[in-house]
């Protein structure tokens, strides 16, 4: 059973379609990065999953509970940290978390135990009696995360949990999320791609309200056009090398990039994604007796994938 599964989810704001035919699954135990440019529809999709915004069409289920038919049961299985972390400014941290814990169905002694555990976990010990109004952005963010964690829900939906934090705080929150992976399934949105590469084992890319890709980071980067690209610099004849390299079966195209100072020729060898032509390229140049000073196979990053998928030109 999937932790999250959406079926043809649509959301229209007036005439504007913010989310169009979104289908994806999140399996138990996965940490999924939800990526997309500003205004792509990430927050809107998350708000629909948490039951705050009703979908215009389609539906979704959380841990097997349909968000429209069994909204309360679906919400019992998730912890949500909204974008910009709205909190009651006039409450104290402990008081707020205890209130939220009770709302989520905890009662009696378990409220104290759970809130205490979460406060320790999120590094809020020194702030437990502070008024939420007086907290810095980083601590507000932690209170929001703590709220989502209360009651150990199976699914965490975090909307830009590291938004606006300094590098140290980002690192701490990231470590926290990584630790959480053992107990929770996580769906998080972010604009920090390096973060996704570090902690996520699945990536969903959305653009203009449509899902563009959903796969593991490795497979996404591997399937990219830039994946099999090898750049070469050698000194020697151009035509003969181009002809010889063109004969390698996996090579699709060879681009001459110019002659560098000292007579070094620079070539880009574009091959099928997932193939490595370095060895054969080097062998050919060596057989011709030309000096070779640089050979490099491009490893595409998630950023390349992101740009490729969401480029509008």
């Amino acid at each position, binding site marked *: 059973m999937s932790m999250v599964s959406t079926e043809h989810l649509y959301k229209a704001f007036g005439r504007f379609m913010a989310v169009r035919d979104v289908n994806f699954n999140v399996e138990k135990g996965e940490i999924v990065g939800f990526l997309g440019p500003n205004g792509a529809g990430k927050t809107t999709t998350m708000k629909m999953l948490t039951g705050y915004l009703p979908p215009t069409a389609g539906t979704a289920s959380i841990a097997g509970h349909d968000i429209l038919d069994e909204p309360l049961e679906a*919400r019992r299985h998730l912890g949500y940290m909204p974008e910009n972390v*709205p909190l009651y400014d006039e409450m104290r941290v402990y008081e707020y978390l205890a*209130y939220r814990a009770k*709302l989520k169905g905890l009662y009696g002694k378990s409220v104290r135990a759970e809130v205490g555990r979460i406060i320790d976990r999120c590094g809020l010990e020194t702030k437990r009696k502070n008024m939420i109004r007086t907290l810095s952005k980083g601590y507000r963010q932690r209170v929001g995360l703590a709220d989502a964690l209360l009651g150990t829900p199976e699914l965490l939906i975090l909307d830009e949990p590291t938004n606006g934090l300094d590098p140290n705080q980002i690192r701490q929150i990231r470590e926290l999320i990584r630790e959480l992976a053992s107990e929770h399934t996580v769906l998080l949105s972010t604009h920090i791609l390096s973060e996704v590469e570090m902690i996520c084992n699945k990536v969903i890319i959305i653009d203009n309200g449509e899902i563009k890709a959903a796969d593991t980071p490795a497979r996404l980067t591997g399937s990219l056009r830039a994946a099999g690209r090898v750049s070469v610099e050698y000194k020697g004849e151009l035509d003969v090398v181009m002809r010889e390299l063109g004969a390698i079966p996996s090579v699709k195209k060879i681009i001459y990039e110019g002659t560098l100072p000292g007579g070094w020729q620079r070539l880009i060898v574009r091959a099928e994604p997932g193939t490595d032509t370095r060895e054969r390229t080097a062998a050919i140049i060596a057989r011709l007796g030309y000096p070779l000073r640089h050979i490099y196979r491009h490893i595409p990053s998630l950023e390349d994938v992101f740009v490729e998928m969401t480029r509008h030109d």
Partner: protein
Amino acid sequence: MEQEETIPKTQTSEPVRRRTSWFATLRILYLRELKVYLGTPFGWVIIACAMALLGFCLQTVIQIMSKATGEGVMYYLLNNINFWFFFIFIFPLITMRSLAEEERQGTLEGLLTAPVTTTQIILGKYLAAYTFYLIIWVPLLLYPWMGQLANLYTEYRYGITASGEIPYLLADWFGPYAILSLMGAFFIAVGLLCSAMTRSQIISGILCTSFMISFYFTGRVTELWGEFPAAPVFHYISCTEQVSSFSRGLLDTRPAVLYLTLALFTLALVKRVVDYRRWTR
């Protein structure tokens, strides 16, 4: 937590547990709302102002009663233009922030994504605001006792046996409190409706004030236009006339039906508004 989750699965009485947890959640929401009223200066400022203004009314009442007699203090206190002048502003003050502020801060999102229904949220807010409204009238019960104190002081200081007394007669007190509670039940619901319609406290307050003023004057239409075929309708909804008869001890079931029905209807409307605003957002 563990128990909550596991016990019902082995028991057969599933619906019973749901009911109790429904009210438990309502209670949590209600207590937090009440804490916002009583745990912040906001609520106490309202209570203090209401007390001061009531004291001002009482002063006028004493003037009146020194000439006219025949009715109890409560009658003169409530059938007094001073009283109405501030009474209609109590409701926007109590309710203007409840849902509007929640939406402005964005905390409504947190509430509605917790396992809580819209009905529970609205009832929690409504009951808390209504409780607070009732609390405003509690100090009134001290007036007879304060009257006694004043008499004692007069006797001690000037040697005159003062005879002015505010008796604790159930007849004098039950009627006014009954009509105040009934009107409050409806007007608080109206205030909540105004608060649900906007994210601005100011606009919510203005909406509610306008309603209160219109409702008050609608009840007095017959004083201007005299009796005409539709006049009974205006008498029926006239809050000044109802207060007048209730505070004389003339209890009537019609206002009770009127206000309770309107309150329920308005609350249903609040739920529609909150849901509708979510659908279109």
